[in-house]
């Protein structure tokens, strides 16, 4: 039973979502502010966080950034609008996915399950791309022998790209493979995640050699020559 932490300041929304998520079979802890949320997160170590953006005190972006400093657990943002700056800032601060209010509980549940699946292990061996070594059995990535702290989404993205080295994958394909968005995925999710992944695996993130942009198509993992 997945253990979720719901951080939402509005009582009605918090109660409603708690009811709905509990009914979908999740164990839910709730917090009404960012500070409470961070405290609960440290005490109870949930599997996933559903985080409202507009919070009194420290806002959702800041909560997201603070959690990402130490932990790579999945974070889903509850945002007000789908096409404004909220989404971009939220994805940059390390969120894995977002849903727009008012959200259907079914949709939120599907997103939660998809994010959680990303961390599931696969039975496969390891492969090396230059200094980066991906161990599919242990679900770890090392660079120059050092463990990289990747979120499940970043890891899944790297795995999907490395499964087809040298082959370009479109943003829509990656959205289906990694985020399990059936259609109409937001391509900014892919772009933001690629940026975060590059920051961790590339030697020079601004001049990527491993994860290349394929103009007009999407992204491609190039094994170093």
């Amino acid at each position: 039973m997945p253990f979720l932490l719901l951080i939402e300041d509005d009582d009605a929304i918090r109660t409603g979502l708690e009811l709905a998520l509990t009914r979908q079979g999740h164990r839910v802890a709730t917090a009404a502010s960012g500070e409470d949320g961070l405290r609960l997160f440290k005490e109870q170590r949930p599997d996933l966080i559903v985080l409202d953006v507009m919070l009194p005190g420290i806002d959702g972006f800041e909560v997201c950034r603070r959690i990402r400093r130490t932990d790579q657990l999945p974070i889903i943002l509850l945002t007000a609008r789908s096409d404004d700056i909220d989404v971009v800032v939220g994805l940059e601060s390390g969120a894995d996915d977002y849903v727009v209010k008012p959200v259907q509980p079914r949709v939120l549940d599907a997103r939660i399950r998809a994010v959680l699946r990303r961390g599931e292990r696969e039975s496969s061996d390891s492969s090396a791309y230059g200094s980066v070594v991906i161990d599919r059995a242990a679900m770890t990535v090392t660079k120059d022998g050092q463990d990289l702290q990747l979120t499940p989404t970043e890891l899944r993205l790297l795995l999907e790209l490395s499964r087809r080295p040298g082959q370009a994958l479109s943003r829509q394909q990656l959205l289906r493979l990694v985020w399990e968005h059936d259609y109409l995925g937001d391509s900014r999710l892919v772009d933001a995640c690629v940026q975060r992944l590059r920051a961790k695996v590339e030697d020079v993130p601004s001049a990527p050699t491993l994860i290349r942009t394929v103009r007009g198509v999407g992204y491609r993992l190039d094994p170093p020559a």
Partner: protein
Amino acid sequence: MTDQQTTPRRFAAGPWRRLRSLRVRLIAVFAAVALLAAVSASGIAYWLNRDAVLKRAQDTALNDFRVSLSRNVSALPLNASCPDLTTLASTVASSGLSYDVVVVDPAHPECTASSDPGQFTLADVPAALQSTVARQREITETNPYPYHLYWQRQNLAGRPFVIGGTKVVPTGPTAYMFKSLENERADLNTLGWSLAIATLLALIGSALLAQAASSTVLRPVKRLGDAARRLGEGHLDTRLEVEGGDELADLARTFNRAAESLHEQVEELSAREAQSRRFVADMSHELRTPLTAMTAVTDILEDEAESLDPMIEPAVRLVVSETRRLSDLVENLMEVTRFDAGTARLVADEVDIADLIMSCIDGRAWYDAVELDAPRGILAVVDPRRLDVVFANLIGNALKHGGSPVRVRVRESAGSVVVEVSDSGPGIPEDVLPHVFDRFYKADRGRARSEGSGLGLSIAMANAQIHGGTITAANGEVGAVFTLTLPLAPPPPPAEGETGGGPAGDAAQDKDAT
């Protein structure tokens, strides 16, 4: 009003308009005034001068002739012979001034004594002058002489002469004097030319003056015209510099006042409009919070509805369905306010249009009701979420009002993708057709509660337009046809749209680098 009157004539009367322009009229008036003044002044000067010059010349000659004649005639013998008369003529003529003399004597009618016989004879003297000279006057107190000196101006062989004649004694000879006025005529001609040139100069000067005057008048008029045009283009802060205190300055002041008041009114209107837009935006935001909570529990209610009391179940279902409707309405309202405020942004990605339509139909379980004719491989850079809204609205609208089968046909043509959605319904009444994209416009006014929010087609249109495309509505052979035309690549976003940069922006830079 005047504009309406002149507009139809503007093209037909093009050259006329130019001729009737203020500049041309001013120059014409100035030139006419200058011409009148110059011609009358020159004319008067010419005639006065002419008179004075001729009078002086002939007076001098006639006086000299009289003196010389009276002095020499006494030396003539009583019965003077023809040679005597010739001597007299030569003597009188050689008195100093350059004139010629002809002397005739009734005693020698055959003899014509001339100082220059080849040049002048009695035949050159006009008959009228001869008879006047021959007439004897009665001697009275005021008239001591029986014969007077008479003169007449006459052209001889094209040259001007003054001819004077007199009789000294009743029985004596008659003497005529021929004084050439050639020099005086040359002088007067020179004067005439000078005056003509002066008149011409005055005309040119007046034209230049008129040009300058019209410029000083027309420059402010042109400025006023430019300012009015800028004002019309929407630059409401356009003002004129007010110079001096003349009528044009008054006009400029009036213009400034009008512009000021227009500016204020427009600002007030747009402030009010912004206020009401903000109100709608704020309101939909506020509505969203309780709706989110309600939506969160509708699934639970729906799942439990079957096990509820048969009296309660319909109530629960009603709450569930109306919550969803309200949620859609608020979502549409927010979408509309985003378009109104210009904050709607494209999150573009290259997608296959056929895939997008397919997933739109699949996701809404419309597959049985829609005939899709869409070749795969038409790739366009679009915002998939927005385009899905467009397709959902067009197809949903066709299903709702037209009825199945709904046909969706996708074609690529000249850099655009064209999607036709046609239904099998009764079509759209002609009077409704221009309003189908209006907000909250419902074709059937009698139907108070329709299933749609009344915003669907207007949002679809706005979404098409943000892609640089458009939607048209028409009636086909059967049913209504909505045609969406989209460019394969959207227009570049406005520079200010790139706020925040974000991952998309970085990715774009990255694309350029690789």
